[in-house]
């Protein structure tokens, strides 16, 4: 059974790798979007799924990454901007992590949202002071290149989530989620573990933001730090379910395809269905799609 599942994932990865050879721009574009959300949601669960510290502000890492990329573009080689974006997001998480992760529950949720807003306005102010009004990116790499970068990021994110979940680190994080005090008293260095999880869950979104800045060849803080990014991540992770790697893949796949089917002429209806789904999953299937499927498989 396990082997079959493993082969299935490998098959999926290969299919994704072959996609640019098979499909046109539209399919590649859809693939980039799907992979973007997978990478973001997988990164998110490393913090929020595993520790229960629900971040409503992951757009901050995405936006920071995009910003670093457009600032570096044409000044530094592309790879430097790309890595720099991940580094900046990860370092930012490390820098703010210690005080921020002492705040729990609904306070943490709102705090992360507030942080994303603060950084957004700081960057708006900086850009305005520089007389910048949105930065255009000229000479972005071709679509297929961006696709493979995103595929790499998504794969990396999945592997990180998968590995962490099965590691000593993951067990410690699960203990924190279940009962932080008890975890401390079982020897879990909670502050350090949370910080590691925070940095891990920040770095990839930074690089995703960098790729997406090239993809849309335009940077503007209101767009890059849009709360919608944060919200979508949470919705996908919740609907996909759980704290394990398959959840966000299923959630992202489900929502991206659903939106693909519905946005045609019923965008508001798509959003309403999205709302109903979030409510439905929270209330009646907190284990998410992944949990549901597992339960079906194990009678």
């Amino acid at each position: 059974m396990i082997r079959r599942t493993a082969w299935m994932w490998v098959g999926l990865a290969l299919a994704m790798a072959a996609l640019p050879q098979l499909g046109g721009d539209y399919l590649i574009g859809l693939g980039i979007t799907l992979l973007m959300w997978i990478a973001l949601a997988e990164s998110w669960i490393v913090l929020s799924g595993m520790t229960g510290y629900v971040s409503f502000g992951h757009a901050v890492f995405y936006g920071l990454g995009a910003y670093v990329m457009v600032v570096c573009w044409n000044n530094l080689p592309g790879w430097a901007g790309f890595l720099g974006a991940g580094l900046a997001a990860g370092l930012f998480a490390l820098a703010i992590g210690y005080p921020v992760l002492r705040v729990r529950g609904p306070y943490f949720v709102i705090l992360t949202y507030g942080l994303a807003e603060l950084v957004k306005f700081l960057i708006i102010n900086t850009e305005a002071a520089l007389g910048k009004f949105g930065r255009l990116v000229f000479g972005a790499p071709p679509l297929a290149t961006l696709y493979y970068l995103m595929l790499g990021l998504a794969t990396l994110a999945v592997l990180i989530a998968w590995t962490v979940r099965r590691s000593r680190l993951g067990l410690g994080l699960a203990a924190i989620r279940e009962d932080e005090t008890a975890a401390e008293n079982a020897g879990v260095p909670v502050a350090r573990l949370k910080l590691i999880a925070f940095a891990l869950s920040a770095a990839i979104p930074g690089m995703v933001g960098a790729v997406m800045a090239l993809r849309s060849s335009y940077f503007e803080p209101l767009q890059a730090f849009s709360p919608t990014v944060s919200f979508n991540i949470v919705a996908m992770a919740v609907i996909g379910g759980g704290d394990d790697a398959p959840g966000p893949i299923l959630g992202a796949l489900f929502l991206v395809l659903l939106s693909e089917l519905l946005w045609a002429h019923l965008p508001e209806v798509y959003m309403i269905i999205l709302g109903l789904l979030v409510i439905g999953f929270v209330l009646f299937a907190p284990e998410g799609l992944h949990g549901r499927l597992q339960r079906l498989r194990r009678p």
Partner: protein
Amino acid sequence: MSSLLSGQLLFAALATGGLYALVAFGLNLIYGTLRLLNVAHGEIVMLGAYAAYWAMTMMGGAPLFALPLAALLLGAFGFALYGGLFRLALSRPALMKRIEGNSLLLFFGVSIILQNAVSLVFSASPRANKADDALIAFADIQTSQSRLMAVAITFLVCLSLAIALKTSWAGRAVRAMIQNRDAAAIVGIPLDRLQAWSFAIGFAVAGLAGALVSLFEQISPFMGFPYTVAAFVVIILGGLGNLAGSLAAGLLLGVVETFGVAATSANWRSILVWGIFILVMLLKPQGLFGGSRR
């Protein structure tokens, strides 16, 4: 800057802050009594604005007719929502626990639904009420009749709520309930009825706030979110479940926004608001005015 001493600024701070306090009150009331974080609270403000717009523009009503109407409609909506959904859920503890634990996500879903349902029905185009009433001046303050009325109504409502909380039986019962639900139930406080009223009043006050907003600003299906955010900032500053604290924090936010900008520069507005919010959360997570955290 000498301009910091102007009555005009103080008036503006009170007008803005009063509105924040009004919106935040309902959010905090529902959190206090039911431990639910209603992220869709701004959408209630939006619905109130649409109700008032409808009453004033379509039916040609005066503001003094539209404002209570909006409050009433939204209050009824809150009452119905509680009766229809939460009473059912409350009878199933396992489900209710899940609702409490995930209320942010849950109401996030509700918020998306309300925004897009309104957009579907009324279209996304912004609308606005007429704002061509007479101007008045007193001391060094100049303003419009409707703004003065709005400020007066805001403070009247905030004050009555504060007094009702302190002195009336229901107010004391609500405060007891916020302190300790189980104990409140044991001493015979009718939780169910109070919760229903908390929903109704929380929604009515938010609806009223929305109606007031519609007098001065354009309205659209997506106008609610900033109010949700402002209300969250206020109740965190004032302390979750601390109703008097959130009234005070609402005013404080108004002062920060108005005087903070006057003292620095307008482009610092949002940085100031969020910076102060984040500092308070990190340094004094139980809110500025003490209060119990749980």
